[in-house]
């Protein structure tokens, strides 16, 4: 709590931001495009880690929140053509409201049922989109008339800025007094209650924050890609990728999941020439890390030593 941002982390972060900012000077539009997507996935995984790593709740449906944000923004843009910023804000609001409506009853459940409810929520959303294909484009997806910009460099910088701001806010929150209470709630809810903390309130707040960031990221992703489709935003497979990214990077660290998610997106792109084998190798690496380094890639670096 006292050393929320230690010096080494600060320096490493500053170097990353600096390097990432000047990258567009050298990299091709194609590579920038991959990194842009990767940053959004980084935010997805960080939001997920706040829930799982800190509140101790496994959310199998990160794409429910992302999808709500993305599709609300896309539908609004198609219907009334407000400025993109307004679409994103409304999308974020939709994710927040939907998230709270889902979490309120779900947090009353114990054990694995919370996770199952979130999983069902994704399937429901997916079905709703297919059923209302007239508005949503169904399985084919829907395009949006507006985009943030068509300049790949600008798109990249938008994504980077959003990623960095999210990382600072989420990491700061995780290391704050509220983060401490959240962690206690996740670890031993009965004891946290007995210490005078309203565990449900704190977990609900964590879910809301997670939903908000997921919703904004989802909506921005739509206005970057110019389209929203079930396969790229809501599919269970996307949710699994977000979760694997978080675990791969090191859960309970916020920054680790960001790295893990970016790694997965980039690795999938690098290995694309291998075709089908690509998914197999990425999955294999993820499995190996989870089995042999359960703390994740950055778990050891980012987590203060527990035995020192």
């Amino acid at each position, binding site marked *: 709590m006292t050393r929320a941002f230690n010096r080494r982390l600060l320096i490493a972060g500053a170097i990353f931001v600096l390097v990432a900012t000047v990258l567009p000077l050298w990299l091709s539009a194609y590579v920038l495009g991959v990194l842009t997507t990767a940053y959004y996935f980084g935010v997805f995984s960080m939001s997920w880690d706040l829930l799982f790593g800190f509140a101790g709740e496994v959310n199998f449906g990160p794409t429910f929140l992302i999808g709500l944000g993305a599709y609300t923004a896309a539908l609004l843009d198609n219907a009334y053509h407000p400025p993109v910023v307004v679409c994103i804000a409304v999308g974020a609001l939709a994710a927040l409201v939907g998230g709270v409506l889902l979490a309120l009853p779900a947090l009353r459940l114990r054990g694995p049922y919370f996770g199952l409810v979130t999983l069902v929520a994704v399937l429901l959303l997916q079905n709703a989109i297919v059923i209302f294909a007239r508005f949503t484009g169904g399985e084919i997806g829907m395009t949006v008339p507006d985009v943030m910009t068509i300049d790949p460099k600008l798109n990249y910088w938008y994504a980077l800025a959003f990623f960095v701001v999210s990382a600072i806010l989420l990491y700061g929150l995780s290391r704050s007094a509220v983060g401490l209470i959240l962690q206690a709630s996740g670890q031993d809810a009965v004891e946290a209650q007995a210490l005078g903390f309203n565990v449900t309130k704190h977990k609900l707040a964590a879910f809301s924050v997670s939903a908000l960031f997921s919703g904004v990221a989802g909506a921005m992703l739509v206005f970057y890609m110019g389209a929203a489709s079930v396969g790229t935003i809501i599919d269970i497979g996307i949710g699994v990728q977000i979760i694997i990214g978080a675990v791969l990077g090191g859960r309970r660290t916020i920054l680790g999941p960001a790295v893990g998610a970016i790694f997965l997106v980039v690795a999938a792109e690098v290995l694309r020439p291998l075709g089908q084998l690509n998914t197999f190798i990425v999955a294999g690496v993820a499995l190996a890390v989870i089995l042999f380094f359960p703390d994740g890639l950055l778990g050891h670096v980012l987590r203060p030593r527990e035995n*020192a």
Partner: protein
Amino acid sequence: MSALEARGLVKRYGGLVAVNDIGFDLRSGEILGLIGPNGSGKSTVMKLVMGIERPDAGSVKLDGVETVGWPSYRIARAGVGIVFQHSRPLHRQTVLENIKLALLPDSLLRLTAMAGVDDRAREIACAVGLSDVLHRHPATLPFADLRRMEMAKAIARDPKVVLIDEPFAGLTGTEVEAFSELIRDLRAQEHAVLLVDHNVKSVAALADRVLAMYLGQEVATGTVDEVMRNETVRRVYLGGTLEVAQRNGAAAQARPSLLRVEDVSVFYGKAQALERVDLHVGEGEFVSVVGLNGAGKTTLFNAISGLVPYAGTIAFGDRPLTGCTPASIARDGIVQCPESRQLFADMTVRENLDLGGQHLPADARAEQLAWLFELFPILESRQNQVARTLSGGEQQMLAIARALMMRPKLLILDEPTLGLAPVILEQLSKALERLRATTPITVLLGEQNVTFALPHADRVYLLEHSRVVWEGEPAEFAAVMGEGYL
């Protein structure tokens, strides 16, 4: 006015009445001990006070304000602190940060701790004797310090009422003394303290008054002396007058050894549960290990069954068991019938028994089954009943019968009398007597209830605070230990 006033508390779990009409008063500056053997409902009472469980009837008043129905965080903020027996501290934070946690406001908007929290946390840490380890992480602390940290968290908000669950579990003699001193300090600072313990002895020196519970009901209330002299309390713990029905002692000595336990120690994390225990069981012998709850009986049996890692050697016949899996030990013929019974609750009596006899050929299984129905006639009539609907005594008989289906060479019975009414004890006792008389089986029985343990035993071991403190024949035990056991 009492700081805490409980009246007519009732808590049911399904058909089981865990707490039945319990009430007490607790004043500031007073220590009340709530005692009773495992399963008597005392921890449930504590949970009802804390709001972790909701009572089916009754009232709890904190300074005259009804708190039943409040969530536990509200009760905590109203002035009740609890020291859990098992807790999970934040392992990534230091001791000081763990204590600070308890001082944080329940707010979503205060991202940093208030001024003064740091000083207050240090002050509490010093008060409970943690000043040297403020910046260590919980995983590196000795067990006693972890308990101190839990204590610090519980009293951080200066609660009027402090609940302490099994304050001395896992502590050594000197640590018990230091911890007792802390609890006396709480009393001196006008806190109202409720101690929950299975052991009369350990709270005797501390408590101003004691309430003894058994099977969910109050059996006695009063000063420590009054309660310890109470006839019902003595019967609950000792089981009434001591009887012995020892077989020929000399013959027992000549038996070839079946099980040898040498110099065995077990640690649970940092708590020592067994300290250099030696024990042997001869073929066909009936050996009882007696000791109060928490003395280490279950741990000893779990070590023998290979369920917990241990230091020292355990040999079965000629074969050392070190490194054997629990499954291979069971196949070798050591079958444990655990305290918690572990029945397949949704299967019928017959299915439970058939599973126990899974490895036997069909005709041997039928033969074994017939023999068991003779031993426990009640099970024959209940064959098609689902195990969970049996009474406690019947469940215990089924657990023993299922263990016997495996045709064990050594049967380990862990606390078979747990939570059973006296009538049932008698039935169970008769069944054990028949078992001993009609078969050459070797039995290792762990019991808190001495009256139940002695009649069948050829030899007795007394476990106290993780160590074997006495070994001998039942007749001597009755003479020597009968008085000092409680």
